[in-house]
């Protein structure tokens, strides 16, 4: 698509970028003495709406909806953003399979703002109509469903679906002509592989488990990553130090939460040049990621305040903002 087609949408996003929360607003939120003060500050910044009241989850959900409403309204080609909703789409699949197999009903566990909304996904899994799922998702859904039924191993089911999600993101990145989608896909898959390696190393998982969970990507060699994780934390850091994710190795040395924060910060840093791009889908994708990052950080601060965690503990988890 001609990049000039995005001129209107990018201009709209430029106005909305001015309302994004900055690092200093995050500091103000952190300085609030309790959750109520935080909500008041967020309300002043335009978060939530009249229906949300002081319900934190409702406010955060509304903010997510607002972001997608703008994208749906302004973007000339929504298929560009499909890849951004893959995590939600595959989450819906996991949730539906578990709900059907365990026959335990849960409320509010589905996302509705993705290609296959919750109730539709539930109906597909209940009727085993996996062919109605897009792309190669049907095969994965069938495999995960049968695995859970036969083994009753929820983690194995998660691993199958999560890996399929990563592979779908990677494929979408390769097929996309948008540079930012390619960057997003590569970073998402590589960082997910690294997170799997870190957690598997800490919990002593086998090489087979890691290889089953990790998806191939260009910037990380999954065989070497898994082998390094099997050898220990030091070997894992050494391997990462030789990749483009060298700073992640330093973050790992500090703490797991610093590492998680580094993963998110890296993604934001990767999309920051889009602030100066006036055309193409780049600024829209960057805005979506910035909003996700912002909402995630606000959720962490509010959860910390609710549970009266020390400020330092919350601060360690605060992500860098886009603006």
């Amino acid at each position: 698509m001609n990049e000039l087609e995005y001129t209107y949408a990018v201009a709209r996003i430029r106005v909305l970028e001015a309302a994004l929360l900055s690092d200093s607003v995050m500091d103000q939120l952190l300085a609030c003495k309790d959750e109520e003060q935080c909500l008041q500050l967020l309300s002043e910044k335009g978060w939530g709406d009249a229906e949300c009241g002081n319900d934190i989850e409702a406010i955060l959900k509304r903010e997510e909806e607002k972001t997608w409403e703008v994208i749906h309204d302004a973007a000339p080609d929504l298929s560009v953003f499909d890849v951004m909703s893959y995590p939600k789409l595959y989450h819906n699949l996991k949730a539906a399979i578990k709900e059907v197999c365990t026959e335990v009903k849960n409320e509010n566990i589905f996302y509705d703002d993705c290609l296959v909304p919750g109730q539709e996904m539930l109906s597909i899994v209940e009727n085993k109509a996996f062919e109605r799922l897009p792309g190669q998702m049907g095969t994965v859904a069938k495999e995960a469903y049968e695995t859970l039924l036969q083994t009753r191993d929820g983690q194995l089911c998660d691993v199958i679906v999560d890996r399929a999600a990563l592979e779908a993101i990677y494929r979408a990145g390769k097929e996309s002509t948008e540079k930012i989608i390619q960057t997003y896909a590569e970073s998402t898959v590589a960082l997910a592989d690294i997170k799997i390696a870190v957690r598997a190393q800490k919990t002593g998982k086998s090489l087979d488990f890691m290889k089953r969970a990790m998806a191939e990507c260009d910037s990380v060699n999954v065989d070497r990553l898994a082998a390094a994780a099997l050898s220990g934390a030091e070997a894992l850091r050494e391997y990462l130090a030789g990749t483009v994710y060298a700073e992640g190795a330093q973050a790992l040395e500090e703490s797991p939460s610093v590492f998680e924060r580094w993963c998110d910060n890296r993604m934001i840093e990767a999309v920051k040049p889009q602030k100066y791009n006036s055309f193409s889908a780049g600024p829209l994708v960057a805005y979506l990621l910035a909003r996700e990052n912002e909402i995630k950080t606000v959720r962490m601060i509010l959860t910390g305040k609710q549970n009266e965690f020390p400020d330092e503990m919350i601060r360690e988890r605060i992500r860098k903002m886009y603006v």
Partner: protein
Amino acid sequence: MDKLGIVYALLGAALAVLLAGAGSAIGVGIAGQAASGVVSEDPGKFAKVLIMQLLPGTQGLYGLIIGFVTLSKVGLLGGGVQDVPVQTGLMILGACLPIGIVGLISARAQGKTAAAAIGIVAKKPEQFGKAMLFPAMVETYAILALLISFLAVSNIQI
């Protein structure tokens, strides 16, 4: 053959108006999309973004001026069409091309720059003055082309 001179001269006038006008339409259209994006979120910035949107419109006016001068030169506006030798007709056609071609290219480029400058106004409206300078820079080259086309058409003797 004796009428070919006037045909060339009129072709020059048409190209000046057509190319420069088309460029302006494209440029104003691009800037207009950006302006609409800003106003849809913040109607208070209407006046500022409207000025930005108008900047690529000048090339069309320059083309019109050259077209007008050309028509006047060959006597079409006064009612008495002059006999224009083929060589002179070709000279007039050549003289009209700078504003036609430069107008087309510069208006499109100015439209894109204006759209980017509208992005500045969207985020930092207090920087409106600086933001306006960027698309205004592109105008320089349209003015240079206008100057050459004007001097050339005016000084060709029929």
